[in-house]
């Protein structure tokens, strides 16, 4: 941790302590029935609801639309205990949490070790036997029927047994979302028929709680929930949890006990939701099945978390403040509150998908270059707004020409041809990352050089506006054909031919129907430009051109693109170490042909990552000699020329073998 972080952390801590202190003394300064206190009470409760939901969705990847079942169960547990026992409302509150915990446990047990798999029938049989005994008891002693009607009794017990046997937490994505919703709906249906809870009419929780008591207890609940979740996320379980969210398979292979993680999170979530619901209904006094089990609870909770920032600790708290502010602001327009909340959450998902906390973090985690750039943008913005600052800003802020992204990608078509081979899968994924980065840089043209398009006499530039067809690779013909459909930036190609000619490199435009396109180009365009919406400039690899000549070509191509006012993505297509297996291998066990090649490749990639491009260029001749590197890495020369000294580092999205040869997907960082 750097000194700057430490001071920032200390300042943050001091601020937090100050805030807590203010919140603690606030009730003493305000009227006992103050509106502000009630607002804060609501904020605290919704922050707890949000925490509980965020723990499931934001951390464990379990998107629930059924947390209202815990709201209802917590609320009704409080109402039942308070009404049917002499306990006062505060002693009844723990029962809210207990009921929520038990219900969550019921839903989670099929995941537990003891009841999983084939033994699941045992507890079911036990439950069924108990049920039959209970039915017999009710027949003898009708007063023993806590359900007060045989229909409700049978449906509820059946439902409970069923929910106990349902492996809810094994479901994923939309299935989990809808299943939780169904659970909530079915429990609600039973509650609206149950005489004990007033059937559909609901119950009252009459008590003499004061607003100050509610305020402090909700504040305490929020503090405890925040601390527990903070501890959980700080522990090694926290990391495991996010691993589960991001890639369940991967998490399983590194030995994370997913069942236990999910169960724990679900239990915590259910318990806190029910406890908060208990406090909520103490204040609301009246509880009915529709008000307690309604889907609008999910709408509120989703808004709280999405607005604040999913997957962040402070997100739900910030979101609860936003929620209460909006909700109360709109209280005047009775009934329109949810409409606006719904609209707002859609807008937030599009405009700031990481919520308020996402924006805060974005400001805090800018890299130095990004900070410089964003400052420049602000300045430009001010210049535009105030009309000052000399040079008129004629273009939009994001439309200035120049190189916007640069990539080194492998020319091997294997990941396209056999996408199921596990050995090449990481390469495909690396390609996807590069595609995303390329799309995000919003280029007008891709300036591409492939070592596999060989030219002998002149430097060739593809000049046909649209070129499509089928291609069978010379080496990998048994894998089948690749289709391609390319749009060429012919204006740029013509300009390049002219400029190269002036510079003494004999150049020619190729504009023939059926002119062959090489595997490297097809592969790169397949992955990088799947929607075929970005035109491309393709330059050939003249085998007599050396490193420096290729470098000058790259430079020239980008110069011409900038003259035409275009944003450029630079792509160099070619591999690393060049030795492939001559004999048949099982593609699934593909690996780099030799240890020496592997070491060299990694060394080269490391130099890129560290931004040591001078050292890299110095090493290339040896690398090329030692590993028979793909055409002496001329594709790298193209990139270096095209980016003109703007490279400061790189991100290696994938590195691996393609039939023994080294391949890597690299995204360069530019200043």
């Amino acid at each position, binding site marked *: 941790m750097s000194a700057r972080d430490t001071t920032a952390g200390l300042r943050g801590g001091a601020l937090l302590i100050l805030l807590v202190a203010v919140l603690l003394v606030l009730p003493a300064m305000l009227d006992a029935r103050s509106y502000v206190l009630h607002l804060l009470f609501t904020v605290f409760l919704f922050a707890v609801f949000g925490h509980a939901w965020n723990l499931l969705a934001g951390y464990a990847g379990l998107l629930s639309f059924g947390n209202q079942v815990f709201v209802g169960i917590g609320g009704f547990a409080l109402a039942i205990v308070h009404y049917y026992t002499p306990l006062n409302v505060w002693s009844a509150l723990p029962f809210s949490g207990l009921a929520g915990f038990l219900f969550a446990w019921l839903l989670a047990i099929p995941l537990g070790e003891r009841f999983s798999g084939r033994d699941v029938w045992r507890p079911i049989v036990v439950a069924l036997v108990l049920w039959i005994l209970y039915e017999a008891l009710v027949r003898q002693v009708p007063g023993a029927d806590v359900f007060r009607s045989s*229909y409700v009794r049978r449906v509820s017990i059946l439902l409970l047994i069923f929910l106990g046997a349902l492996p809810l937490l094994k479901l994923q994505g939309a299935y989990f979302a809808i299943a939780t919703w169904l659970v909530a709906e079915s429990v609600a249906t039973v509650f609206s028929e149950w005489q004990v809870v007033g059937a559909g009419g609901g119950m009252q929780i009459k008590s003499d709680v004061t607003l100050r008591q509610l305020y402090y207890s909700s504040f305490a609940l929020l503090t405890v929930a925040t601390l527990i979740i903070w501890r959980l996320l700080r522990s090694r379980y926290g990391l495991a949890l996010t691993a589960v969210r991001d890639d369940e398979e991967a998490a399983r292979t590194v030995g994370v006990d997913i069942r236990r993680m999910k169960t724990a999170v679900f239990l915590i979530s259910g318990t806190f939701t029910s406890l908060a619901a208990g406090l909520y209904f103490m204040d609301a006094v009246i509880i009915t099945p529709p008000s307690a089990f309604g889907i609008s609870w*999910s709408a509120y909770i989703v808004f709280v978390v999405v607005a604040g920032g999913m997957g962040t600790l402070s997100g739900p708290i910030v979101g609860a403040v936003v929620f209460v502010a909006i909700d109360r602001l709109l209280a005047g327009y009775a009934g329109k509150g949810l409409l606006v909340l719904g609209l707002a959450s859609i807008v937030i998902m599009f405009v700031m998908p990481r919520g308020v906390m996402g924006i805060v973090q974005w400001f805090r985690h800018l890299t130095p270059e990004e900070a410089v750039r964003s400052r420049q943008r602000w300045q430009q913005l001010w210049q535009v707004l105030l009309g000052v600052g000399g040079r008129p800003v004629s273009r939009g802020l994001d439309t200035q020409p120049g190189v916007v992204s640069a990539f080194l990608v492998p020319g091997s078509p294997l990941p396209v041809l056999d996408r199921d081979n596990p050995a090449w899968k990481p390469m495909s994924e690396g390609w996807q990352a590069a595609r995303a980065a390329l799309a995000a840089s919003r280029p007008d043209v891709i300036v591409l050089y492939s070592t596999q398009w060989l030219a002998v006499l002149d430097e060739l530039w593809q000049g046909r506006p649209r070129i499509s067809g089928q291609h069978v690779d010379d080496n990998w013909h048994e894998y089948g054909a690749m289709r391609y459909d390319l749009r060429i930036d012919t204006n740029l190609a013509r300009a390049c031919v002219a400029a190269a000619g002036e510079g003494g490199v004999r150049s020619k435009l190729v504009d023939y129907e059926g002119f062959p396109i090489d595997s490297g180009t097809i592969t790169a365009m397949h992955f990088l430009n799947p929607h075929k919406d970005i035109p491309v400039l393709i330059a050939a690899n003249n085998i007599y051109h050396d490193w420096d000549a290729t470098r000058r070509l790259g430079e020239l191509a980008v110069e011409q693109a900038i003259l035409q006012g275009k944003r450029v993505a630079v792509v160099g297509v070619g591999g690393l170490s060049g030795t492939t297996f001559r004999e048949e291998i099982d593609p699934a066990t593909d690996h780099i042909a030799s240890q020496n090649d592997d070491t060299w490749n990694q060394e080269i990639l490391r130099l890129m990552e560290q931004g040591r491009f001078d050292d890299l260029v110095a090493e290339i001749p040896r690398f090329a000699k030692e590993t028979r590197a793909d055409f002496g890495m001329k594709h790298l020369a193209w990139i270096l020329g095209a980016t003109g000294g703007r490279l400061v580092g790189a991100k290696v999205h994938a590195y691996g073998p393609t039939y023994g040869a080294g391949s890597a997907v690299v995204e360069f960082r530019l200043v």
Partner: protein
Amino acid sequence: MNEDLYWMFIDVANGLLSGSMLGGYYAVIAIGLALNFGVMRLVNLAHGDWLILAAYLAVAFLSMANVSPFWTLLLVVPVMYVIGYVIQRVMLNRVSVQAAERRGMSASFGLMSPLLVTFGMSIVIGQGLLAVFDSNAMAIRNELSFDAIRLGEDLTVSTLRLIFFGIALLMLALVQFFLHGTHMGRAIRAASDDPEIAALMGMNANKVYAVASGISLATAGVAGVMIGMSRSFQPFDGPTFLLIAFGVVILGGLGSMVGALVGGLILGIVQVLAGTYFGPSAQLVAGYILILFVLAVRPQGLFSR
């Protein structure tokens, strides 16, 4: 014949018959969701609300022109198609997994965002309907509501439901033909099988998705009018129908039209029988339990590959 045995037989026969009729109507409710789900892997949580919106559209249309409710389809279906197309084009295409990736969000967020957005849409539609119309229950009046065809002394079938069943078969056949027999349909299936290859073949996946979504909502238009004709409805009834539609899709398997019919029939019959034997509120619970059961045992659906 033994009296008890006779009535038991009649109960079961009635259950099977009206359950099947209900099942056809459920299948229509679910076609749109199945299409969305099967083609775009998108669970449209606002599906139920679109159905209700369509029913309100029909009501609005009928308040202007005094015609048979069936004529409203001529207006409702195209309007719903346009809504579906536009919503997909301007909104839902932007919240796919790929879109999340482009913005540097994790894949799990990418899977969640369409759910969150359509959930938000569901609330907006419900609340919007509440603001425009009232919370009073509405219905599309029609002379067929109480007509029934007598099959035996104690065995009848509602005329309306029988017509709906016919419409259901017709629509399922149409959608099936569309998906397998037309160029656009094949494009939709190709895009659902492998978006990358489809893109490679020169298809604009976003447009294909928009068309699929438009058709999905067009079928929801038909279903909405059916709902309006057979029962009363309120702005917030959407989620109930979403759960039914989802149940049908889960029972029948994703994206399969025959599956939708089978799923609808199973759900309809189980609900009617549960209602007959355990009382009206058992209908809903039995449906929910059935769906949860299938989710637990075979989340990919009973009849999918």
